[in-house]
């Protein structure tokens, strides 16, 4: 089924070099009608990746296409809706003025859709952009993005400033977009619980490198959490790439389908195995700060 689906966002060998940070060789592929979550620690490169995709910062190398079109082309930009921490909007103008000024850039912009969303999100069109709280800015940007019918929605930490009630509504809106309008959604978040249920694909970055990009189902199947007694730590073969959390009574880690455990399968019974959530996956896949 997946093979016949159209790719909405394709990133190939994307590299961005800053003086003090490099985003290395990122490859992701997101079909229409699916949600991809982008996870990673602070400074792992999530915002850099998103800004490169949006062509807000120029990539150093690689290729990005939106529905088959190079992301620097106007047609590609017309297909993308985005929510960023610092949007392009004018601080000293009202919501209505900002929407009018920026809506003109999009071929499918609808003023009436925008007014409906603003009302639904409990914003007022006379509010000044600078006076909005972080959560309200996100709501405004969401209303704006949805009002030009994007085929791809890209968001950097959209749920950060949201109250829990709106966060649920927000996830509902996203599911409506992917299920009814076949929109593709890419968003970064530290609230991994947002992704545990709704995300189809997960991409993780760490220190500017892509750790993995796969479906959430593959992740959960292939990377169980293993817990065991301290003395059994030696049963794990040398070269285990994951972080191991040691306590006085035992240890905890993630192993890829047992394949770095000893070949003697009877020893596996000494460990307990459980299904991981994304927070655990992110923890065990990250480079530890202090060894």
């Amino acid at each position, binding site marked *: *089924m997946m093979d016949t689906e159209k790719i909405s966002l394709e990133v190939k060998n994307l590299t961005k070099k800053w003086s003090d940070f490099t985003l290395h060789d990122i490859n992701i592929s997101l079909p229409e*009608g*699916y*949600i991809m979550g982008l996870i990673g620690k602070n400074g792992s490169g999530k915002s850099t990746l998103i800004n490169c995709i949006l062509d807000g910062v120029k990539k150093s190398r690689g290729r990005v296409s939106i529905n088959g079109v190079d992301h620097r082309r106007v047609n590609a930009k017309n297909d993308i809706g985005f929510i960023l921490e610092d949007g392009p909007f004018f601080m000293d103008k009202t919501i209505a003025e900002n929407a009018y000024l920026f809506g003109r850039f999009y071929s499918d912009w609808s003023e009436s859709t925008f007014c409906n969303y603003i009302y639904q999100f409990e914003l007022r069109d006379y509010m000044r952009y600078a006076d909005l709280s972080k959560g309200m800015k996100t709501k405004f940007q969401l209303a704006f993005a949805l009002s030009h019918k994007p085929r791809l929605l890209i968001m950097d930490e959209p749920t950060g400033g949201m109250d829990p009630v709106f966060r649920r509504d927000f*996830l*509902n809106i996203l*599911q*409506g977009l*992917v*299920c*009814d309008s076949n929109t593709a959604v890419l968003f970064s978040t530290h609230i991994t619980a947002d992704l545990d*249920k*709704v*995300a*189809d*694909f997960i991409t993780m970055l760490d220190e500017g490198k892509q750790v993995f990009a796969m*479906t*959430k*189902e593959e992740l*959960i199947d292939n990377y169980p959490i293993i817990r065991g007694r301290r003395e059994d730590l030696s049963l794990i073969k040398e070269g285990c790439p994951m972080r191991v959390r040691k306590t006085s009574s035992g240890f905890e880690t993630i192993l890829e389908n047992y394949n770095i455990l000893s070949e003697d399968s009877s020893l596996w019974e000494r460990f307990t195995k459980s*299904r991981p959530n994304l927070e655990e996956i992110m923890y065990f896949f990250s480079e530890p700060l202090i060894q």
Partner: protein
Amino acid sequence: MNIVISNTSNLAIYEQIVAQIKDAIINKEIMADEPLPSIRSLARDLQISVITTSRAYDVLVSEGLVYSQPGKGYYVSKSQTKMLKEKRLQIIEANMTQLINQCKGAELTKEDMIAMINLLYDN
């Protein structure tokens, strides 16, 4: 047909969907050749990912309980309820064997077990 997803279940979300659709078929809540909800509408209703939902449907198709008509959707296969019931019996038998072994380990006699079942069954 009701499907309820629990976050605290031991089963993965796709397994919960498979189990509950099987129950609905056994209990004749959905009959042969009746359509199942589309993958995307079920994903939306349950607030879970599309891939998780399509994985559940793939399992049901591979077990022969459900068939897909390209471009139309998924339907319940004919006369699979007998097989499902047999499978269920097999599971109960396996659990019962385990229970008997536990009882033997605790030095309970067959009569003790029957007495216990009589006491608990009607509760």
